[in-house]
């Protein structure tokens, strides 16, 4: 992927991620999150991870975001009223973020081979979905079944949570 496309998608992703945080209206936040995830999927494709990119769009931009929008509209949330900011907390938050960015830049400058060019890959007749599938169903088969059980437990938990009133 050309650097221009890369930086375009990074800009879209970060801008709409910022809009998620800055928007007062929850529906606008959710829609910004969809656009941010779509740009992220484009970045995955730029890294030759086509399968993960498709999964990102299907699961995140599709299912998860529909769930978010559904809950927002079910609860009929209004735009958040402007509340008095807790000033020490805001200051503390910004200090933490600045420290985090400092650590991030340090890590990036010290990463071994971090300035390497994108190494060429020779994707054979099997695509990356085939490779990932082989790993999932052979090497990580147990983990796959554990995750399947986890989803089953989660869906049972959701049913129970939504049936009973919290006392």
């Amino acid at each position, binding site marked *: 992927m050309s650097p221009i496309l890369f930086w375009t998608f990074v800009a879209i992703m970060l801008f709409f991620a910022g809009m998620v*945080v800055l928007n007062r209206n929850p529906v606008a936040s959710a829609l910004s999150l969809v656009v941010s995830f779509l740009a992220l999927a484009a970045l995955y494709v730029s890294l030759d991870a086509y399968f993960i990119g498709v999964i990102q769009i299907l699961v995140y931009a599709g299912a998860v975001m529909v769930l978010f929008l559904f809950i927002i509209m079910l609860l009929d949330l209004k735009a958040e009223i402007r509340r008095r900011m807790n000033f020490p907390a805001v200051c503390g938050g910004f200090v933490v973020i600045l420290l985090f960015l400092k650590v991030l830049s340090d890590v990036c400058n010290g990463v071994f081979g971090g300035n390497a060019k994108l190494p060429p890959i020779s994707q054979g007749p099997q695509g990356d979905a085939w490779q990932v599938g082989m790993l999932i169903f052979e090497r990580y088969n147990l983990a796959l079944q554990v995750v399947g059980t986890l989803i089953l437990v989660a869906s049972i938990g959701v049913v129970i949570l939504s049936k009973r009133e919290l006392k």
Partner: protein
Amino acid sequence: MVTLNDYLMASGLLFAIGFAGVLLRRNVIIIFMALELMLNAANLSLIGFSRFNVQNGLPDYNAQVLVFFVITVAAAEVTVGLAIIVALYRARQTTHVEDINTLKF
């Protein structure tokens, strides 16, 4: 040319934005979305490391499998979390974290 550092910077900035969202916002659902942003930032760095760690002409697919599992678990987490938010809203008629500050009610 795009390097691994560029992807890591993008991932770190996305994580920082999500972190700021968790700290700054007071709506549980927005906080939840910011958490999703942070999860996806971690996924982006994983895919980046996978693509830049080429062996025998193939990227490291173990990282992509890990991302697959993270996405799956995140989807389960979202469903449970949103169910808890709905239950909270039924009990308290609010989604503001400052109004939900008692452990027992």
